[in-house]
């Protein structure tokens, strides 16, 4: 965190540089079932972040030495498109992507019913098409919807959301300038039904009270994002049901 700067991130009215209140999320749009080839997929726009998630599996894990005879393994790959950031990013995983992929894989472990699919792999691909602070949380949110769209049995969805501290104020969902010039960031992944925290990172400088306030904000916001996820899945199922209905009708027409 924290390049120093003279940028004022909170104005005299307590509003943020993009006009949001401290506990206000950026606009979020979620769409399920956006790709043909993948077993499940989702697209999330979160502020200026544009994220695609796709799921393949459960399928046979390969190479074979990765297989676990008691459960499916979860392999997440978080990747940024070369054009997704200001300076072109070289293709392929960098150290940051490797770490994020690891902790996102771990975040989904306790939610997915992996024990149903021994020797299998459930592969989750998160592609950041445009990045604007908060991509790992948006990616988790998208990946959860893609997993549900793929029909992977889960105890619940997972919501990714961050809070942090800018200009000595605790705020929800840091934007790009806040991320660059702020004082702390606390990304989390939350299982909405149980309130379990399955991903938690923090960097910056916070007192205990500030940290807990930030986590409170994220716990609250997770409920709202959870509704958006479920809504996207409901719309997706409606489309599928309609397609199936039309298919049955066309078959019936053929029979007549």
């Amino acid at each position, binding site marked *: 965190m924290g390049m120093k700067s003279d940028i004022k991130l909170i104005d005299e009215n307590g509003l943020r540089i993009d006009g949001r209140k401290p506990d206000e999320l950026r606009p979020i749009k979620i769409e399920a079932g956006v*790709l043909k080839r993948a077993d499940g997929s989702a697209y999330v726009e979160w502020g200026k972040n544009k994220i695609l998630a796709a799921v393949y599996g459960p399928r046979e894990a390969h190479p074979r030495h990765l297989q676990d005879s008691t459960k499916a393994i979860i392999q997440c790959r978080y990747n940024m498109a070369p*054009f997704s950031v200001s300076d072109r990013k070289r293709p392929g995983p960098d150290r940051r992507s490797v770490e994020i992929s690891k902790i996102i894989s771990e975040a989904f472990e306790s939610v997915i019913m992996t024990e149903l699919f021994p020797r299998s792999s459930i592969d989750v691909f998160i592609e950041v098409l445009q990045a604007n602070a908060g991509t790992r949380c948006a990616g988790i949110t998208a990946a959860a919807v893609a997993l549900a769209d793929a029909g992977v049995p889960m105890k619940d969805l997972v919501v990714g959301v961050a809070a942090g501290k800018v200009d000595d104020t605790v705020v929800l969902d840091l934007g790009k300038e806040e991320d660059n010039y702020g004082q702390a960031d606390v990304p989390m992944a939350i299982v909405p039904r149980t309130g379990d925290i399955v991903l938690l990172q923090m960097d910056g400088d916070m007192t205990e009270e500030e940290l807990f306030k930030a986590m409170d904000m994220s716990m609250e916001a997770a409920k709202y994002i959870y509704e958006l996820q479920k809504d996207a899945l409901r719309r997706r199922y409606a489309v599928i049901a309609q397609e199936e209905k039309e298919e049955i009708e066309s078959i019936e027409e053929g029979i007549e």
Partner: protein
Amino acid sequence: MSQDVVSQILKDYIYKTLTEKKRIDGRGLLEYRKIDIQTGFIEVAEGSARVKLGNTDVLAGVKMSIGEPFPDTPESGVMTTNAELIPMASPTFEAGPPDENSIELSRVVDRGLREGQVVDLSDLCIEPGEKVWVMFIDLHILDYDGNLFDASAMAAVAALASTKVPASQYELGDDYPLPIKNWPVMTTFAKIKDIIVLDPGLDEERVADARLSVYTDQDGHIRAMQKGLNGGFSYDEVKEIVRLSKEKGKEVRKILMDAVKGGE
């Protein structure tokens, strides 16, 4: 049933349909799938375009920065094309460094852009031998449903045609649209037994014997070609495909130009 038997049954089915002048998705033999082109999808890039060719989905982004020219071309900008067959797009794509398929794709698209002179690289020179625009065209394959070549070529040209040169960022005056000199178009044909089809879908590509891609420019000249897959073409088949590529290229070029204008 082995993969092989399945693939033979699929081939027979596809071929039988073709002999009736139809395709398994209902198209005519020389008909493209629906082409959908959206420019400006990535605001943080200097140019971008997302092309859907049926369900094949390719996102191209153009990034520009300032660098040094190559010593042997001191008055030319630098243009690099790169394609990533990310594992999101297909169960057969694997993470890792570019394999032969993505290298071939990026090199063939690059050849068409370069030989087809979409951009005059000398337009990208700022100070000869010292400072030139360095341009990356990145093709991100999101969904693979056949014929990546044509979709990628369209995406690359549309992305370039929607590119704003970020001059102001380097205190070189106002940003301005990248000058486009030509609109080369790649058209890809597949041969299934003795029948030639345009724009093969995924299943057609799987069973095809041979593939030929032809890049034509707005004057109807041939600018690049690439044969693929394990079979061959007769000379007459090549001639027929070259002739068709000019006609079909014209159709695609119109769609491309309209889309870019529409996106402005």
